[in-house]
Structures are given as C-alpha cells and as structure tokens.
C-alpha cells in the first residue's frame, strides 16, 4: 500500500510487546529534553526533540503468519543555533552518554554553518492547542493473537469475494509514538498517538492474465477496522482490470478515484510549501491572491479535524496545529510555514513544521489536506460524462511529476467511461498535463470524502483536458 504510516515518531529501539509502551504524561521524555536545554550556554538556542515509538506488523500468507514484527525504538535529535548558524546531531538511543555526545556534536557542527539572519527556533505564539484524542488504550492493550486473527480474517474475506482472486499478502499493522520537544525559547510540549490498519494486496487471474489490486481500512482501534470493505475493494480493484487493454492516445476528461486524488493533493500542497516559496522553488511563489482554480475549489489543511488520520495537536516544532485555508474560492490565500520560512517571509508560522523523526530537523508541509466536498457521488458523476476515463491507480508520481516546473505525467490504470457508464478496463498508459492547468481544469469535486492513511483525504475529482498516452 502506498499510504503513509501513522504516527511513528520514530527512532532507535527496545524490543518488547507493544502493550508495555511509554508513559501517560511523557515525564521521562520531557525530563531528558529539559536536561539538554538546561545545558544551553550564553548566546545559544537549544532544542531537544526526544521520541519513542514502535510498531507491530503481522503478515499472513495462505493462512499462516509469514512474519510478525514487534519492536520499539527511541532516540534524540538536538539542534543548536548560535550567531545565526545551525548545527544538528542525533542518536538512536537515549543512553545518557550518547545524549551528551549528541549535544557536543551539534555544538561542534554549529561552527560550519553559514550565518543566516532568519535562523532560529520557534517561539510560543499563544495559539491554543486543540485537545484531541489521538491515543487509544484499547489499541495499546490489543493482544498479539487478535492482530494475527485480523490479518487471517482479511485474507479469508478477500478470497471469498471472488474465485479469481489470490492474496499475495494480508497485513495488520499498528504504530504508536510519543515525543517531547523543549527549547530555550520556551517551547515545551509532549504528545502521543497510536493507530492501526489492515491492508491486502491481491492478484486476479484469468487464463494467462494477472491483474493486481489492494484494499485497506484504517482506524484508531481494532474495532474501527472494516475488513469487509478492505476485502471487497481489494478484490474489485484487481478483477475489474481483467481484460484491460492499452488505450489509444487522446485528450480526455479524467475522473480521479479518491486514492489518486489524495496523491494529487499532496503534490499540489508541496508547491504551496513556504520554504519552497522563500527559496524561489515554488511555481506559485508570485501568485498569492490569484485565481488558480475554479471558484468552487476550496483547499484546506486542517490537522485539528479529528476525522483526519493524520490529525495532530502540535506540529514538529511544538506549536499548536491549526486550520489553514490554502485556496479559497479558487483564490490562492496562504502558503504553509514553519517558524523559519515564516520569519523569512515576514509572516508567522502556520503550525506546519513537519518532522520525520528524531533524526532530522523540521521541514514544512501540509498535515491533513482536504477539498471542500461537492454533492455528487462518484457514480452520479460518471453518469454525467460522455467520454472520459476513471483513473483507479497511478504510478511513477515520484519520477514523472516535477513540482518546480509543474510538469505532470504518471502511469495509470483504470476504466474507460462512455455515455455515462464505465466501460472496458485500460492499462499501460499515462496521463499528463501541468499542475497549473490541472487545478484550473477541475470540473467537479465529489461529495465523497474518505480519510486515508496519508496527509490528504480521498475524494473523487474530475479534471478536464488531460492527455492520455497509450498505443
């Protein structure tokens, strides 16, 4: 599955069962961060990011457990800023000697930075943290056997949908993470979260032909997982491509399946990244206030929405996560910022500092994107299209889309749409346009909204005038 895994605030290690995790108040992690920050010297800004996380992954194949991985990890990253120069170091352990070494390395690394007048840590901005329930004890207490049973049940359910379907892997996975961040500038935050999902990867056979599909369901606790839906989608995605042909090349209207739209929105968001803007790499850098999409398009990044799988209380620098309207009425209204890009742009952080774990410093990125939903379902939308293609999956997003130039080209598979109904399956073709054109060419946003294990929600999206390249 191409989705992003939940939460793992990442790191180094100790193997225990996932139940024996962490603390309820983060006191131990905060204490480590506090001790580091207390060692700051005059003229230094110091930030300590301390994290512990872990995950379980169960993979089932033909009724047997293929692997069961249960592991925890922990680590620390320390940033030191002095005279506008930044140094950083990390270690995948919270061993006291290692922490001391990390601080010394970060200090040493400061010497080699180029002075930057905008360098600096985040400072408390008074924006209140939205209380959210990101932790679920029921998941933390879920016994290993139940996890195995879920993966086995999903495999059985998927095979039962259609006799032509095989399962090449059926997975249950969960992850938990807690992290503390403290700075000499007065930031002091701790948070924890957990989540789980099941996923299935399928093969459908017809004679010599094989097609593939996938299905999944995500939740905050095992009871949230919808195995039937994952099984049905996994089976349908594979079987409906059986008999797929390479289509002729033409310009056409594409209907993006929710899972594809989420990937498209993530790319759009990367062009609205404040760091790219201040460094001159965003194609929208001089477009603030311009009409970049039709008036019915509203793009919001809202990690305070509890429905979002990537909902969070604070961002990677410890500032409150908040709702940001990026495109309103089709007009570009806001870029996402962390404290560095905001300072440089002469504005304030939008609470969009992202962090891959303790081994890196904060970047900028959207946290939980969605389009304001329209009213019609995917079926209703398809019924209104005479000639188009429903895009079920795309490939090569990382190789064929350039968010600097705006060129967009991806491999695709899906179903032709003729006279208001889906027709023959098609594969081995590409769809291409530019990001700028695609935003302007949006014809409709579906009324469906599906929260995916990604930083963007899934919705049906119709885009006109896209080039389909095939035979």
């Amino acid at each position, binding site marked *: 599955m191409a989705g992003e895994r939940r939460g793992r605030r990442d790191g180094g290690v100790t193997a225990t069962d996932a139940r024996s995790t962490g603390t309820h108040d983060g006191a131990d992690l905060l204490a480590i961060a506090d001790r580091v920050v207390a060692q700051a010297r005059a003229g230094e800004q110091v930030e300590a990011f301390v994290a512990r996380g872990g995950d379980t992954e169960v993979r089932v194949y033909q009724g047997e457990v293929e692997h069961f*991985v249960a592991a925890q990890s922990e680590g620390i990253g320390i940033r030191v800023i002095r005279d506008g120069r930044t140094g950083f170091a990390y270690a995948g352990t919270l061993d006291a000697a290692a922490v001391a070494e990390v601080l010394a390395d970060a200090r040493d690394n400061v010497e080699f930075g180029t002075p930057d007048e905008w360098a600096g840590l985040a400072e408390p901005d008074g924006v209140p943290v939205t209380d959210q329930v990101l932790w679920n004890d029921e998941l933390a207490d879920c016994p290993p056997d139940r996890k195995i049973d879920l993966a086995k049940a999903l495999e059985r359910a998927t095979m039962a949908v259609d006799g032509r379907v095989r399962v090449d892997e059926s997975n249950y996975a969960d992850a938990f993470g807690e992290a503390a961040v403290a700075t000499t500038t007065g930031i002091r935050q701790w948070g924890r979260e957990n989540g789980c999902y099941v996923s299935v990867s399928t093969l459908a056979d017809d004679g010599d032909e094989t097609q593939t599909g996938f299905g999944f369901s995500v939740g905050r606790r095992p009871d949230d997982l919808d195995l039937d839906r994952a099984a049905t989608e996994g089976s349908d995605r594979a079987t409906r491509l059986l008999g797929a042909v390479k289509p002729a090349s033409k310009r056409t209207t594409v209907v993006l399946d929710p899972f594809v739209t989420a990937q498209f929105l993530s790319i759009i968001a990367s062009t609205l990244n404040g760091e790219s803007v201040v460094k001159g790499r965003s194609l929208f850098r001089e477009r603030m206030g311009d009409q970049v999409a039709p008036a019915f398009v509203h793009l919001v990044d809202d990690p305070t929405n509890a429905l979002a799988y990537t909902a969070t209380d604070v961002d990677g620098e410890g500032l409150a996560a908040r709702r940001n309207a990026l495109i309103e009425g089709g007009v570009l209204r806001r870029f996402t910022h962390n404290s560095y890009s905001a300072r440089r742009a002469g504005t304030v952080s939008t609470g969009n500092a992202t962090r891959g774990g303790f081994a890196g410093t904060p970047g900028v990125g959207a946290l939980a994107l969605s389009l304001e939903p329209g009213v019609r379902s995917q079926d209703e939308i398809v019924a209104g299209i005479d000639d188009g293609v429903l895009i079920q999956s795309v490939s090569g997003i990382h190789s064929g889309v350039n968010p600097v130039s705006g060129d967009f080209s991806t*491999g695709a598979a899906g179903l032709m749409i003729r006279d208001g109904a889906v027709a023959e399956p098609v594969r081995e073709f590409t769809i291409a346009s530019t990001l700028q054109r695609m935003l302007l060419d949006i014809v409709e946003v579906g009324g469906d909204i599906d929260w995916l294990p990604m930083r963007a929600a899934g919705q049906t999206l119709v885009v006109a005038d896209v080039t389909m390249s095939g035979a």
Partner: protein
Amino acid sequence: MGCGTAPWGARAAPPRLVAVIDQELIEQTLATALRTGADFAEVYAEDKRNTSVALDDGRIEQVTSGRDRGVGIRVIKGETSGFAHTSDLSADGLRAAASAAAAAASRDDGGVRTVALSERASQQVNAVDVYPDEVAKARKVELMQRVDDAARSAGSEVVQVSAGYGDSRKRVLVANSDGLLARDDIVRVLARISVVASGDTGMQTGFQSMGQTVGWEAFDAVDIEELARDAARQAIVKLRARPAPSGAMPVVIKNGTGGVLFHEACGHGLEADHVQKGASVYEGKLGELVASPLVTLVDDGTMATEWGTLAIDDEGHATRRNVLIEDGVLVDYMWDHIRSRHDGRAPSGNGRRQSYMHLPMVRMTNTFVMNGPDEPDDIVGSTERGVYVAHLGGGSVNTATGDFVFGMTEAYLIENGEITEPLREGNLIGNGPQVLRDIDMLGNDFAMGNPGTCGKDGQGVPVGDGQPTLRVKSLTIGGTAA
C-alpha cells in the same frame, strides 16, 4: 516499489573491526532465540555513524552527525518469521529482544539448543584509503561550496542550487544458528546537486549525483564541479524544451543512464519472493527466451566502489556475480535465505535490509546489461523519429503485470537520425517482458549510472545500475504534444 536516484547508504572495507558484541553473548542470544523450537535464528548487529552537509540557497544550512546502533533478531519456525530489534546491547537487552522474536515466531517450548559460531573470513571487494570520519568537516563543507560556485557560474539562468554531501561507516556483524559468523565494515560517500534555472518559460530543474562504496578518495577521481555544471546545464537546456510527445515510438537510452529500465522492467520480477508467490510475470520462465538475444543481464554485488556493492549481504553470505539473463534466456532468479531454503538451493547473496530495524528480503545490488554489438552513433543514426533519453529519473513496476514506468529528466527528439530539440519532463510507460523483447539495438559503450536507492516494502537500500546505449523499438511517451 519505487526506485529513485538519490540518497543514502554505506559500504565496504577490510575488517579493521570493532566487535559490536562479543561472540559468547551472541551465542547466548541465539540460544535464547531458539527456545521456542525455532528452525533458525539470526543476529544482525550494526554500528553506523554518518555525517552530512546540507547546502541550500547559498548557505551551509546544516552539518549533521548521526549515530545508529542496534541489533535485529530474526527467528524462523516453519513458514513464520518473528522479528524484534533493540538498541540496548547489554545481555539483558539482547535476551529481551531474542525472547520477543522467539515468541513472535512460535508459542511452543522447544527446549535447549546451543550454537557454536565459526567466523568466516569476508571477501575483500574493495579497499578504503581515507576513512571519511578522519576527514575534517571543514573539507566536506568546502566541497559543497565548490559545487555551489560551479553550478551558479554555469549560466545566469541559474537561480537556485541545493547540494548535499553524506558519508557513512557501518560496521556489521551477522551470526546465525547454522554457525555462521561474518563481519563487514562498509564505507560510503555521496554527493548530490539540484539546480533550478528560470526563464521566460518558467522554471526547470537539473540533477546530478555521485555515490561510491569507498572513502573520501572518491572525490579525487570525480570532478565534482563538472558534475555541478552538468546539473546546471540540464536545467538551462530544458528552459527551451517543448512538451514531450504523447504516444508510442522508438526510444534510445544513453549509456550509463538507463539501468533503471532493467531494474524495473525485469529486475524486481526476478526476485524470488515475488516469483514464489506467483506475483511475477517471470514465474516458470527459466530456460525460456524472455528478452532479445542481445541482452545479458547480471546482478553483481562485488563490483569495486559501485553504490550497490557489499562484501557480504545482510544475512552474512558473500555477494556474487549472478547472471540472470544470458543471450536473452532466463537462467536464474535472485535469492535470500528464506526463498533459497524453500527451493533447496544456495542463496545468491541478495538478502538485504535497510538497517537492523528491518527484516531482510530479496534485493538487487548492482544490476546491469552487458555490451552489445552496435556503435552508439549508428543507433541514433538509424532512428528516423523517436526520443533520445539522456537522463533518467526514478521508476516503479508492478511485478505481477510487468507494467513499469520511469521518468525522463533530460530528453531530446530524434528526427531523421539526429538528436534535435529538448523535451520537457515526463514518464515513459511499458511492459517489462515486451520491452525486453523490443530491444533491437545494443551499444558497445557500457557505463555504470548514478547511485540509486531502491525502495521495496518500505525499505530503501543503495543499488547501482548500468547499460550501454540501446534502443527500444516502441515505448509509450507520456507527454502532452500530439
């Protein structure tokens, strides 16, 4: 699974080794791991240090020092693998991890089994002259500044440059219940350059990188400024690029840039895990003609200094030169411990993992196509209309259908046997088995390509690839022009 050119990894030198953990403790840990009656237990320990320098927007933004150290323990019983990892290398920490892995693999009580390890001398695939951890950070910073200067002086169109340097040294120890004990000391260095050029047509990007499994001496052999100028040149050339065509046509791929084609078109499909699950188009095709008779495809983990090189794989087995396709005929797949045990054969040195936190699986090392008979100029000269790809981006493949894509980051139109106008970026799409058969010209100018990171099942490992200039009779270009 996707494979991009860029980041990261680490690799090989003669063991002037630190014992990550002592032998007696490893033997005890394996005994603990076997307590639930497992068939096989394995300890993988690594101690990795790395340094990186990030330059962007004309500034050294950050120097980073990192350390990762830990042990991954795998226990196999029947068809089930249990896995746990720990950064606590004390006797207690290892016992806890071994017990967790054993419990994950089996709930039985298997009694006591002891393991006596015998150390294997590792092959030496290359030698490190200058360990990067002995080079002053100031020199690494200066390298990046030279890159920045060279790229910016390549043309007034250059508006932004970001560059990164990274080195790593990873000491590895692998031991298992078959008595294997092997060590490695892996040193890698990497540099990458991204350039943005701006003009009337908007912005364009260029990228170059170099990565080797050796020490700092790699930078004596490579002209890093020339690499930076080449990244700038790509971006500038594309400012006058026109939209790529849409549809199927002949494609010529420059030597040393298109190895990713084979990595995707057939490499992943030749990994025994996909094959055994019936999720590869190459299943059951051993001995059959699967490619043009021009094609001989090799995966070789022993190539000195290359990015995917390893003395031992991450299951402790010596890497090898494995011929996969010979004169178009499929002769073998790639194997790890589990898959080779399943088929009752020897592993091929392709069991790899991202780190001690990951389970090993079948992975490629350096994958390449050997020279063919044709002069590169003749290949272009005999193509009436097509696309010449001078630089490829990443790609990805669906191993079950064979459909794959890869990005062209620098490409030109071929008209009447000559390379003419530059094209904007796009993906190419094809079907692996079909494309292998459609290779109708193969050059005699073999070269290895840029360092890559291959992603599979969420794990990234460093890989290399290479090929001579070649032509594919027909590939679909994913552009927008008629």
